């Protein structure tokens, strides 16, 4: 059996600060708004939904206590739909989709809503603590902040500051063009207040005015951590020959901190027909991989390979790619390793321009690639993200 995507929606992303537009909106409301949207757009009898699977990384405070279930209760009549909230770091949103697809494809479920939510303005990254930076883990496993991993990849690959800045500028320009062209209108549901008045209607984070000169002026974000605090040293347990990391990433060429949510309606063909819905795409294959956690961010390479192999495809069989711009170097490294044509990658900009609402991004990227496949009338798309702890994730879809 196959799992199909019938609908996909997302909120606009708001700047993840106390001055951001979505700061005053609780994450449960971001998510519930989308669940209402999914219901209304598809005239969906929500009692037919078997589960709501939601990716969310920082599950404390406003995002604690299984936000998926309470968003479903808040959004939908009846109490019949369960919810589960899962955390696979930055892959959580795509993990939710893959999880839903697995349940549907296996026949265990017929219809699942999958998505993600993260209000980084309200629940700061790292607020959930964890063992990740405990000294004991450091001695047994090894662990550095992600920015140092990103700069390590740039160092190993010989990618320069100018190259990452150019990549970032490109992301901003593609994003600006896509917004200008109204390419997201179909999938972005405005966040509204209790009066129905819009709180945020379009992505708030992009800076179309970005210039190369402006980017060049920004100080490297992890220089202080790496050099002054000496964290760069920690990579040597795995990379003994790296005695100096070139710090190239900064706020302008890394993913932005934002608030947002996404949701997709996933079901098998028969269920879709019974609900009177038309499938938009089939989930063709999914992959998870993991490698050592200090380099951490090269997972997209292995995950892409694995997903392609599962689908019996090659890189050339994919029409459009979304590789999450956690840091500029991530998609750059990934393209080099796999020989992907940059013209097919993140064609409407990525997380550098729009921001990366951790738990929601994977689902947003799948939504983005599906919209663009339809707009260009192409068939196959692949979404991949790097993931904390050295993991990688990928999903291949094809239009039907």
């Amino acid at each position, binding site marked *: 059996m196959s799992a199909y995507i019938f609908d996909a929606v997302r909120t606009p992303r708001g700047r993840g600060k106390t001055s951001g537009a979505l*700061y*005053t909106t*609780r994450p449960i409301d971001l998510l519930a708004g989308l669940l209402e949207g999914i219901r209304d757009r598809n005239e969906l009898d929500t009692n037919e939904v078997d589960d709501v699977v939601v990716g969310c990384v920082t599950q404390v405070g*406003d995002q604690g206590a299984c936000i998926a279930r309470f968003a479903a209760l808040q959004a939908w009549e009846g109490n019949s739909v369960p919810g589960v909230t899962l955390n696979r770091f930055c892959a959580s949103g795509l993990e939710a989709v893959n999880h839903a697809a697995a349940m549907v494809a296996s026949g265990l479920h017929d219809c699942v809503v999958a998505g993600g939510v993260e209000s980084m303005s309200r629940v700061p990254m790292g607020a959930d603590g964890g063992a990740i930076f405990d000294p004991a883990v450091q001695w047994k496993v090894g662990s550095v902040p992600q920015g140092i991993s990103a700069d390590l990849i740039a160092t190993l690959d010989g990618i320069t500051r100018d190259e990452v800045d150019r990549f970032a500028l490109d992301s901003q320009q593609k994003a600006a063009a896509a917004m200008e062209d109204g390419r997201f209108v179909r999938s972005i549901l405005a966040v509204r*207040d209790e*009066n129905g*008045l819009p709180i945020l209607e379009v992505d708030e984070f992009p800076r179309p005015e970005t210039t190369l000169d402006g980017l060049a002026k920004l100080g490297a974000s992890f220089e202080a951590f790496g050099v002054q605090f000496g964290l760069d040293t920690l990579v040597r347990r795995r990379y003994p020959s790296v005695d100096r990391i070139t710090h190239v990433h900064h706020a302008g060429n890394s993913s932005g901190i934002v608030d947002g949510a996404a949701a997709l309606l996933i079901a098998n063909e028969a269920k879709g027909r019974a609900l009177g819905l038309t499938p938009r795409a089939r989930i063709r294959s999914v992959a998870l991989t993991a490698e050592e956690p200090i380099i951490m961010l090269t997972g997209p390479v292995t995950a892409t390979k694995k997903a392609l192999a599962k689908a019996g495809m090659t890189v050339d069989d994919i029409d459009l790619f979304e590789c999450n711009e956690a840091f500029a170097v991530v998609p750059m490294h990934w393209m080099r390793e796999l020989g992907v044509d940059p013209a097919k990658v993140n064609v409407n900009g990525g997380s550098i321009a729009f921001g990366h609402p951790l738990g929601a991004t994977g689902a947003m990227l799948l939504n983005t690639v599906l919209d663009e496949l339809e707009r260009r009338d192409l068939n196959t798309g692949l979404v991949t993200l790097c993931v904390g702890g050295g993991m990688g994730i990928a999903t291949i879809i094809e239009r039907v």
Partner: protein
Amino acid sequence: MTTYDNDALRIAIDDGIAVITLAMDGGFNKVNRVLLEGLAGGLDWLDAQEGVRGIVLTSAHRDFCVGADLEMVLGNDDPALMLEATAALNAITRRLETGKPVVAALNGSALGGGYELALGCHHRIALDTPKSQIGLPEVSLGVIPGGGGTQRLPRLVGIQAALDVILQAKMLRPPKAKQAGLVDALAPDRDALLAAAKAWVTENPKAKQPWDTKGYRWPGARPASPDARNMFLAASAMVYKKTAGAFPAAEVALSVVQEGSAVIFERSLEIEARAFAKLATSPQARAMIRTLFFHKTAADKQKGLPHVEDPGFRKVAVLGAGMMGAGLAFVSAKAGYDVVLKDISTEALDRGMAHIDAELARLKHLDADARAALRARITPTVELEGLRGTDLVIEAVFEDLALKHRVIREVEPMLAENAVFASNTSALPIADLATASAHPDRFIGLHFFSPVEKMPLLEIITSAGTDDHTLARSLAYCRAIKKTPIVVNDGYGFYTTRVFSAYILEGAQLVAEGHDPVLVDWAARVAGMVVGPLQVFDEVTLTLGVHAMAEAEKYLGVASIPGAELVKRMVAADRKGKAHGAGFYDYASGRRKGSWDGLDGVRADLGVAATDGSVEALGERLILAQVAEVGRALDAGIIRNWRDAEVGAIFGIGFAPNTGGPLSYADQRGLPELVAALRRLEAAHGERYAPARTFVEMAEKGETFFG
């Protein structure tokens, strides 16, 4: 001294301190565009002045500022415009609190938006006068504070203390306000008030709001702490117990305090504003504001009613020393009248005077001498002679026409020339009573509610023979005892008793149909009724109900329904009500326990088919049974003024305040839909639901009561 003035205020700068005196036209300062633009203009002017060290904000009127201009609120049903209005107020308070030191010198009441303005100052000093009230009453009108009150107060006094004020719509006298932290200091007189305010400005040249100060810590439980979480959970339960979900304002206020506490202060105001805009533009809040504020105020001011300044009442007599009679004697004496309390039994008089003593003991603000003087104004007597020279007599004897006739004939000759004879009957037609009177033009119905010390309403009934001067004098007495009057025409049960009877009888009918009293009473509360019908029935006693039903049948020819038969059977089974320890409910030492488990036994053979027992269906029946009766009162010409139908229902019998009253309910439902609903219920449950002619005609013409 440099000065400035505009439509809203005047400013005088003396020794570097600017005193802004709010002085709007009409004797009251209200938060509206005039005030906000006036304040903005004043602050602009102040910015251009040299050497201003700080500001004192006060008022030229008796009150500081009594809140938002509610006419402006009612004039705007667009949430987007409402958001703009709140943004304008927030901009002013934010500008005040982030500028030079500013002290609110509260020379009188500071309520709602007026108090929120004061919260936007760095320090609040209140004139200690018993006339003054301070607080946030918005929730009682179906809205929430919309000018920062739900955000500044919790940050000032702590979440728990702020919730106490906001959720209970508290208005506190200055000493209590100081205790609760709503004001920082009290001043004995106006000069001291201004002096203290100026001194504070001088002593605090760098004043800042706590929430704008680095290292600010919440007083009491910090938001998102386990303590705060428990507090919000407990407060949710407290709110729900009170509202049964029928009054969203309290619920919204609680969530806005919580949501706002989770974000930085400046952004919290947006959360409050959005919620305020939604409530303030909701039909429910607008109906509540119209009735609970505008209609209530108009009734209190006796607008459109005949007026005499002095009714010429010096001596008031009350006949019958039961709880009602004693209460009437007490409130009359409190209003300054010389009172005779007459009964035929000395034991009854003793009980009545004991009741008065108990009430006196509650007047904490009076000293022993004042209490003694008040008591001395009341003369208990069993002698008819004691009534000689009485200007106003109110009879509160048993509800029996013959008895009342006898009393009228006996008493009238003793009264002063031009005396007014009032009957406190709750149902008997005044014209029928007046047949025993030699002066039917000076005969009137004054229907009080029990306990009269607490219940705010006075239903005044004029018969065709009552003259306007007698009404005017009665209204003057009403003013003196500080009751809210409604004036209705004569007819059995007048207005409130008819509607009240329809309510409790429908409650009994639902029980006869097999529903549990617990569920019926809860359904009433969910529909907004202040008290469930069966709880009230037990309180007024089923015996009284049986008596009243017999009378009603005599006068109105009301067809009997199984519910009435049930009540008769319950009386026969000695289930007479709370005072007897047994009614629809069981009671143990005066406390209500569960429903009576013998109900099935008495209702089994009533031959009633099972009906919809959902909370919604039960609630609708209880409301519509009353609305149908209000319609018949309209048809019968009982109601002289629609305003009184609303005020009387809510303040007299606890009709769902969330609706704004039965006629507002009709408007919100839409008259065509109301008529249709009544016809459906008529078909299913009987003619008591038949829609009144007035409703049908208005529905056909597309009319509404209040727009």
